[in-house]
């Protein structure tokens, strides 16, 4: 039986991992910032953000600023812990593989 912990399936997806990596580096970011940086389509990004929100990995705040709709995303404490755990497991795996 393997000693390796299984990688969090919620983070082990290209777009969700990209989003969490971006959000861990900033305080909060708008939907369009995430879309531009990941190069994802709005629909796909929206679906993946919803999954991260349901897991309480991110907070999403929808608001209006000067009559413009604005969707702000922010990583939660649980999201940071999940990300750190994911990176730790990833490193363990890669270290043994070398």
């Amino acid at each position: 039986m393997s000693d390796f912990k299984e990688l969090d399936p919620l983070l082990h997806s290209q777009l969700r991992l990209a989003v969490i990596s971006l959000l861990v580096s900033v305080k909060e970011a708008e939907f369009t910032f995430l879309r531009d940086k990941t190069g994802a389509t709005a629909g796909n990004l929206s679906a993946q953000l919803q999954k991260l929100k349901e897991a309480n990995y991110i907070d999403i705040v929808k608001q209006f600023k000067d009559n413009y709709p604005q969707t702000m995303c922010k990583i939660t404490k649980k999201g940071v812990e999940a990300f750190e755990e994911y990176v730790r497991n990833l490193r363990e795996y890669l270290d043994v593989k070398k």
Partner: protein
Amino acid sequence: MEEKNLTQSESLQLIEKMITRAREDEKDSGSGWIIWGWLLFLASILHYLMILIDIRKSQLVWVIFGVISLLLVAFSIFRKWKNGGRSKVRTYTGELVNKIGLAFFVSLLCLVVGNFTTGVNKTGENFGYLLVLYGFWMYIHAAAFRFQLLKYGAFINWAGALVIFIWHEELGKNILLVHAACVALGYLIPGHVAQRNYLHQNKQ
């Protein structure tokens, strides 16, 4: 971005790439350094020329400079407040630098008031204190935005301050030239380089 199964090393590469991309927006446009630098530089040179041709009340240059600076700071705060709600991203570095920037201007204001009330402005030593403060702000900003040229600017300003403190009597009115040189090397050159890099990056 396509959805696909990631290998462990691809995951690590993706994390690194995204963290780097998130930091791409933490670039200084250089405009603040350029505006502030030219104002300070011109005020120093103008004051020097006014002393040279023996114009009375030459210190009025700094009063005008102060009024223009306060108006620009007020305008900048207003613009940030107006656009703040629509900014695409808020970074921890950006917020910290803004707060240190505010602390810089409050400290500067205290120093300027102190210069006049204590009379230290009559000997020219006050420019040394100002250079110390400029150097402090440049060094913090350079470290936050990983901008090496500005770090050299900080050292030049601190060196200029020491020159003024040690040789202020010998320097006399030339203190203004030392001040102008430090501003040109510390603010203007890094400011124009930062602006060129910023525009170049935005074109890509």
